[in-house]
């Protein structure tokens, strides 16, 4: 239980504090590269989620709203 609450707090604190130098719009050349975004290839992510949820107990994390399946 403790870990569940404690962990997100330090993570978000870390995030907020670390980004104190504001990055200017014209300095975002590298951030604009596709591989720097969190999206990833839609179908590739779909396959990965599908394989791991049908072989492991944990599921989700990055998004909500995918359908379930009777995979065994």
């Amino acid at each position, binding site marked *: 239980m403790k*870990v*569940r609450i404690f*962990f*997100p707090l330090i*993570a*978000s604190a870390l*995030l*907020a504090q*670390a*980004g104190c*130098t*504001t*990055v200017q*719009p014209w*300095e*975002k*050349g*590298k*951030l604009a*590269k596709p*591989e*720097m*975004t*969190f999206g990833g*290839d*839609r*179908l*590739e992510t*779909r*396959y990965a989620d599908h*394989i*791991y949820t*049908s*072989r*492991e*107990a*944990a*599921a*989700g*994390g*990055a*998004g*909500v*709203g*995918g*359908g*379930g*399946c*009777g*995979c*065994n």
Partner: protein
Amino acid sequence: MTISKQTPQELAASLLAAALLLPGVRAQADEPPQNGSISLRYLDYADRQPGLDRIHAHSPSVSVTAPVAGDWSVEGTLTADDVSGASPRYHTAISGASHMQDERKAGDVAVTRYFRRGTLTAGAAYSTEHDYVSRALSLNGTLSSEDNNTTWAFGLAGSRDSINPVNHVVVDEHKRTVSVLAGVTRVLTPNDIAQLTLTRTNGSGYYNDPYKLFDNRPRSRRENTVLLRWNHYVDATGGTTRLGYRYYSDSFRIRAHTLSGEYVQPLGNGWTIVPELRLYSQSAAWFYYDPVYDATLGAPFPPGFSNGADPNRLSSPDQRLSGFGAVTVGLKVAREIGKLWTVDVKVEGYEQRGSWRLFHDGSPGLAPLRARVLQVGLTRRW
């Protein structure tokens, strides 16, 4: 024909305007791709344990993303799984494994509205196979700060599944879930961006695996995930590291850690190579029982079954609820052809062993599971 006395500005403009009217003197500049895209992908999955080839799946899928009227975009995917093979009825027992052949079709569509500093996406998903139909709706939104360095994300989704196993262990069973998501993405430096996402899912209904023996699970499940991701651009190599850590915990008292890492390395004239490593570790569900069976009745009866244990006691011999560790090693090679086409091939090896569980010892007595995954993809932008 009057010779009009034009002021200098009007003269210049009229001359140019007249010249521009001459037919075909100006080429229409070809519009750069408007981030529309269509992707085809094919998956070939096969897993086995020593002595038993288990599941083999072929899965073609297609995805289309189309910008609409400037501020909107529509995305849709269609997938068809052709799954066949054998699944142990309990733990990793080879004898009596149930052979199955199944065709699953799934599709989803999402409509996104773009605002000046945010997006709102409504999605619907549908999946059907002979014994399981799932419907899901979702609403996701993002909001960016004025300097676009911080983006908040929030999401709400619900799903409703109906289950009708061929063995009629149950008839017309249902499962409902509601999930919420909150996240923040933060630009740290010109080379670094990080993201924290929290999700919570509450579900109630039929969670059992109808094809496993003594699989009697609680009728509700609360699941939490915390996902921290960090992408870093490496100036020296022009490559990008993509690291992620996910902590999962649920009311089955399963705790799972997932550490995943990818390194995207462009190689010049369109080639890109992406090695991938994933480490996973989970604890067993509290009602999972090890392959140690009832003294008198033997496998698959749970211990104490013969001397009057409560028959609807919660229990499950499902390997997926046991404690184990797993490693995935993968490599993707992609090739961009011209400005519009990309083709890629991805190969992954996955292995799951009780003994690989991190920090604690895993469930004993289960055969290791190995899987190899092959994917081929083709994408065209327009």
